[in-house]
């Protein structure tokens, strides 16, 4: 029996190997453009994960990258591309030409994806919405169903619950047992942490349990949901992490330019994902100046809460 405060610290390699097998549904990119678990995505590519279902609202380049690396057979998302540059070349190639393989897409909106994860989090089979009515998404995503509000007789769309096998969540800090603190942009992070069967927490900083539990209201999920904790500084690069580092816009633009062709994409994967043996290797390749340029410099600490009695 694992005690609720026993360490769940693993290396990223171990965590992905144990908790993201082939065929998993994986929720990532829950904070929209921030705190995207790129380190975890790179590790999935290095481990040649296959047949993943990716779940997330908008994923910036992470989903595009995993699609281009052949890890993905299905995407459940509201938007897939490159926020800085627009279209994602790999996503387009997969959808339009089946390169590197066929890709099924369940179209969502940000509201419907948040609603589906909320339904998963509260254990409801579905939640009705008045969005989506009249749209093509009702056809292109057959998981939505038409319904009626029995009180008013008005049409609604029933959004079925999403309960991903695993949510990979990058957070600012956590203890070794997986009590995690995330702040700033949250997106659907809180819903995903509860809707997923299990959670891999990736933290820029590991703190003591006492420090984390000094603010239990900020904790993301209860111990039973946490499968693993990974300490990976700059693990959300090139996306931003509030209080830790800013977004590296240039990296997104360069990815866009270089992934335009299959060959360019292969070269990008080699250089940035496959050749480095782990995330530290990737960061070394970026160079310390690049990380220094985005590192947070001016602390803005919050007014603490007081749990005293």
């Amino acid at each position: 029996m694992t005690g609720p405060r026993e360490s769940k610290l693993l290396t990223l390699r171990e965590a992905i190997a144990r908790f993201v097998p082939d065929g998993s549904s994986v929720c990532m990119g829950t904070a929209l453009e921030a705190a995207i678990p790129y380190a975890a995505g790179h590790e999935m590519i290095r481990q040649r994960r296959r047949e993943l279902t990716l779940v997330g609202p908008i994923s910036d380049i992470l989903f595009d990258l995993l699609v281009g690396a052949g890890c993905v057979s299905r995407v459940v998302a509201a938007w897939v591309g490159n926020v800085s540059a627009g279209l994602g070349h790999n996503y387009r190639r997969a959808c339009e030409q089946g390169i590197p393989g066929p890709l099924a897409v369940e179209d969502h909106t940000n509201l419907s994806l948040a609603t589906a994860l909320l339904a998963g989090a509260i254990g409801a089979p579905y939640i009705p919405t008045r969005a989506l009515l009249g749209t093509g998404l009702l056809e292109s995503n057959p998981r939505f169903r038409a319904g009626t509000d029995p009180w008013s007789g008005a049409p609604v769309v029933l959004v079925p619950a999403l309960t991903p096998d695993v949510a990979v969540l990058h957070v600012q800090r956590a203890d070794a047992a997986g009590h995690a603190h995330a702040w700033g942009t949250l997106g659907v992070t809180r819903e995903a942490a509860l809707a997923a069967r299990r959670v891999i927490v990736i933290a820029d900083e590991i703190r003591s349990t006492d420090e984390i539990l000094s603010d239990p209201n900020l904790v993301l999920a209860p111990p039973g949901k946490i499968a693993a904790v990974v300490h990976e500084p700059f693990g959300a690069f090139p996306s931003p992490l509030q209080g830790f580092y800013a977004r590296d816009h240039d990296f997104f633009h360069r990815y866009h330019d270089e992934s335009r062709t299959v060959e360019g994409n292969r070269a990008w994967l080699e250089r940035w994902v496959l050749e480095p043996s782990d995330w530290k290797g990737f960061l070394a390749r970026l160079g310390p100046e690049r990380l220094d340029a985005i590192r947070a410099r001016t602390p803005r600490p919050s007014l603490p809460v007081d749990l005293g009695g």
Partner: protein
Amino acid sequence: MSPAARPIPTRFTERELMVIAAGREIRDGEMVFVGMRLPLLAFAFAKRTHAPSAIGLFENGIVRDSPAPETLMTMSDTPNIPGAVWSTGTREIMGLLQQGLVDLGFIGGAEIDRHGNLNTNYVGDWRRPRVRLPGSGGGSDIASLSRRFVVIMPQEKHRFRERVDFITSPGFGDGAGWRQRVGLPGGGPSAVITTLAVFRFDPLTAEMVLASYHPGQSVERVRDATGWDLRIAPDVRETPTPSAEEIAIVRACDPLGYWTR
């Protein structure tokens, strides 16, 4: 007024004009679903001019009553959080939207049709798309649920189509009464602001109508860049030329000219 007395027009870019036109759509005190790029600047412009009490919502969970102090590339950039009046989740923001509390939302699109429907999912048949576009993001939700919405997009003939292949963000569907019929609670599009012109919608036919063409454009040029037989408002006119002061304000909102140059 003799030609000599005319004020010397300040030079401005298409996008600066679009920002100012979009900013004018915001009324004071409104809750505005802001989005990124030009709408974000329109919000900043409106806050500094006629709508100081407007509130901006972002679908990542941020609510601001003042624009971020730095140019943002994405809504989740770190400068967008300090000074926020609320930092919560997508579900909470979408909840305000679905409650009907968002007065105005801005959205873009790859394609639009004569009834203001937008497509950001598929060009061609969605079962075998010629182009797979990124998808809705929150655009469909804003179009469905905000009390009114404004579209901002570049105008090109192939993007202004009689009928879009796929409705991502619903306008007025196939015409008047459609939104009520399918059950959409929001009010639909109130304006389309493009690189060439401003369009509004005829309340009887729910059809897009040319309201004003930008300085340097003409009714004919706008017609040529529209993929259907465009109706022209009886009182069509030139979009008001921004004042030097207005342009200065837009530039202060985007000092590097990242989005407007």
